[in-house]
């Protein structure tokens, strides 16, 4: 693996983010920078987290503790597209269970698994604050709402191309 370093442009952004907080409070930048790191390297390996710790002059354990607390950070390798579906009450009322079962069958994997071709990972998440537009899943920043089995097929087809 090549050395873990942000591109210059991202490093500029890191500096800007740290400047949002008072002097000495640079640890506050941890979540925003973990997001940047995950966007860059797909998942938060211990090497990535150690690098983030060095950027903020904090100890690595502080990063591990935080990254493992929040569910958005992947501590294991993931596929190219991470599908995070909402399994909470309102989405279930709207037929979420059937739709998500279809998703799993279609990709032939279970929650928490990655397809053999490394293309898709499915994760189960809690409420995504889109209850009126459920069932919902999220792939990176994008929300897919009012899901049906047909819609799921279309989305998978599109992303499989």
């Amino acid at each position, binding site marked *: 693996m090549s050395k873990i370093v942000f591109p210059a442009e991202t490093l500029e952004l890191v500096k800007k983010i740290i400047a*949002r907080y*008072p002097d000495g*409070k640079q*640890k*506050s*930048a*941890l*979540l*925003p920078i*973990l*997001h940047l790191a995950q966007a860059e390297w797909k998942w938060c390996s211990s090497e990535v987290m150690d690098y983030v710790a060095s950027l*903020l002059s*904090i100890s690595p354990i*502080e990063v591990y*503790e*935080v*990254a493992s*607390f*929040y*569910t*958005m*950070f992947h501590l294991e390798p993931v596929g190219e597209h991470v599908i*995070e579906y909402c*399994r*909470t*009450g*309102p989405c*279930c*009322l*709207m037929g979420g269970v059937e739709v998500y079962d279809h998703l799993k069958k279609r990709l032939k994997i279970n929650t928490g698994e990655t397809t053999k071709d490394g293309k898709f990972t499915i994760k189960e*998440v*809690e*409420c*995504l*604050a*889109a*209850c*009126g*537009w*459920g069932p919902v899943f*999220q792939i*990176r*920043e*994008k*929300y897919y709402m009012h899901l049906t089995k047909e819609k799921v097929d279309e989305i998978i087809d599109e992303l499989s191309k």
Partner: protein
Amino acid sequence: MKILTEHIDVPNIDTIDVFMKHGGYSAVQKALKKMTPDEVTEEVKKSGLRGRGGAGFPVGMKWSFLAKPEGVPRYLVCNADESEPGTFKDHYLMWKSPHTLIEGMIVSSFALGANTSYIYVRGELMYVINILEKAIQEAYDKGLLGKNILGSGYDLDLFVQPGGGAYICGEETALLESLEGKRGNPRNKPPFPAVKGLWQCPTVVNNVESIAATSWIVNNGGDAYAAIGVGRSTGTKLISASGHIKKPGVYEIPLGITVEDFIYSDEWCGGIREGHKLKAVVAGGSSVPILPAELILTTAAGEKRLMTYESLSDGGFATGTMLGSGGFVVMDETACIVHNTLTFAKFYHHESCGQCSPCREGTGWMDKVLNRIEHGQGRKEDIDLLVDVAKKIEGNTICPLGDAASWPVAAAIRHFRDEFEWHIEHPELATKPGAVFMRKGASWTK
């Protein structure tokens, strides 16, 4: 009467020029140029505006608790960590009209004497964070943020902070911990954030909707705001409506309309989906007690229930519920209460930070017991066990997540005990796909 969403469907209202064309940022002009911070606070107090995040604590009073020691910075932090199942109003408002929140942030920060403020948005809403960042940049470009705003001498920097996926960060002290780059463990209180908040400095944490409402209050006066609504439930409220209704979505209602109107009127939810009947409602987000149809429409005393803090809590937890965050989840007769309660219990189990033992262990226990009942392995004693576990969590935890986890379980058993018993006594029927208990003689409403 619409205050927050009046122009929400105007094309490009998310851009500052269109927003200003529709009267946007006039509250900043008025507050910074013609009012003192105390005068703004006074109007907010007069308005009777109550915290829209769920607790309903008067905003003006919360502001007045803010400690103001010399030489110590003060902070306003906007709680946009909306994650309570059933609630998606803040998501909607920030996505459609980011400047509504930013204007409120400027006005509120001015009132509190904060020169740096943060909007803590749940990390999943990264696209909304991008929308807010862009809108904030527009506000800087127009001189509405930064140094010496509109020549008033007042400086304000506004930043967006992403969360990382943790419902608990909606609890204000957990949010502050998270904003400090730590695990979202709620703090023991006292001290309260008003005295020791962000980086141990005096801090006010308010919900998106509360902050957004302050601009209208500045423009129109606290009295005008208080004139809307009923009693101590003043102004308008964003209600997130979901579940088995014809028109799910976010609605801004004047507090005080009847629950019946809200569910059945075409102006709001448009009634229960075709061919079905109302069975139950969770009126204020997943944590508030679920009520069966007859008790959500009328109080135990037979009065029409209103969409207000007081009317929804009429009867206490025995026969009432709470307005909470306004997450209005409607269930028709096809909804299985046991399954729905399980999904909520799983949620709180998953979201418990794990600091204090009643919540850490109790939420997992309730989840496991409910899971057994749902899958046909319930025991007769499990129902009373759940009630007792809920009782042992409630009130004994560091933060309200423990209460939020125990109320929905206790309430579901309170009002739908027969449904739980049916699951336990007839596992072969209850575990059939799509099977739902039908109460004998149940007359779920239209």
